[in-house]
């Protein structure tokens, strides 16, 4: 995920915290957050993933005037869906296999980050439930307005040969 400018906005943090079911006031109440150890509104640990909103080329967001692979009149808006349906941490289709974060300093409302992504290793494995698996790694450095490293993120995406078979479930 690359973004030249990733503004850390209080309203965005509030919506993100709601979506993960976290009512902690440190994510939305500036007055209450002042009295905490954090000293102000901060972002939850996985918030930097939403830098996707500020990546102009992020491929899992419909773009104005461009075809989109989700359903409308037809089950998909393009003749061939990318890969197994597109997705996750990898490029070009697949699923999110791993995500790792290192936190160097708190991420605060009002910070303005820059996200720079570096490609990592790729490797293959034979999967029991989805055929051949192709893994690809990327590392993203998030720096603040002072050039300080705030978060280092390492994501691993996986492309599967076929949809993942589900483990046997107990019948309810």
């Amino acid at each position, binding site marked *: 995920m690359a973004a030249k400018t990733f503004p850390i906005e209080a309203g965005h943090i509030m919506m993100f915290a709601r979506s993960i079911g976290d009512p*902690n006031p440190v994510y939305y109440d500036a007055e209450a957050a002042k009295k905490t150890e954090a000293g102000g509104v901060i972002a939850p640990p996985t918030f930097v993933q939403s830098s996707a909103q500020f990546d102009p080329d992020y491929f899992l967001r419909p773009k104005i005037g461009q075809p989109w692979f989700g359903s409308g009149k037809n089950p998909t808006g393009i003749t061939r869906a990318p890969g197994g349906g*597109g997705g996750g941490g990898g490029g070009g289709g697949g699923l*999110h296999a791993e995500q790792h974060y290192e936190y160097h300093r708190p991420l605060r409302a009002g910070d303005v980050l820059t996200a720079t992504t570096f490609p990592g290793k790729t490797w293959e494995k034979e999967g029991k439930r989805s055929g051949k698996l192709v893994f690809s790694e990327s590392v993203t450095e998030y720096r603040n307005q002072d050039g300080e490293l705030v978060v280092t993120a390492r994501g691993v995406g996986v492309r599967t040969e076929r949809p993942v078979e589900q483990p046997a479930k107990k019948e309810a």
Partner: protein
Amino acid sequence: MPLSAAKLKVGDVHTARLVEDLKRTQIVQYAGASGDYNPLHTDEIFTTKVAGYPSVFAHGMLTMGMTGKMLTDLVGDGRLTKYGVRFTSQVWPGDTLDGSATVTEVADGIAKFTVSTRNQDGIEVLSGYAEARVDP
């Protein structure tokens, strides 16, 4: 409240219910907040007819976010130094998830944990680790 090292010992297990009967709307909410609009998570028609899955399923990052809430509730705000996971099985609408964090080491002001989240059938959907600064 930040954690104190004196109150932690190796093997301690902290657990929390992360979500009960996960709703499709919460998955939509996460898509909107995170900016990951992959139709696999919100578009039942695409997901069943084109991608070949039985229904839409949650973003791995939603599970990581919900598991992260358990961790920040445990260690305090802004205290995590590392948090990483593997997504080991998919999470579906209707799932109920329980998380656990087990203390593996406490030294030099850092507490280390293994982290696991399981669904109502006992299947592990997320497996990982976390580290946090703790008070003496």
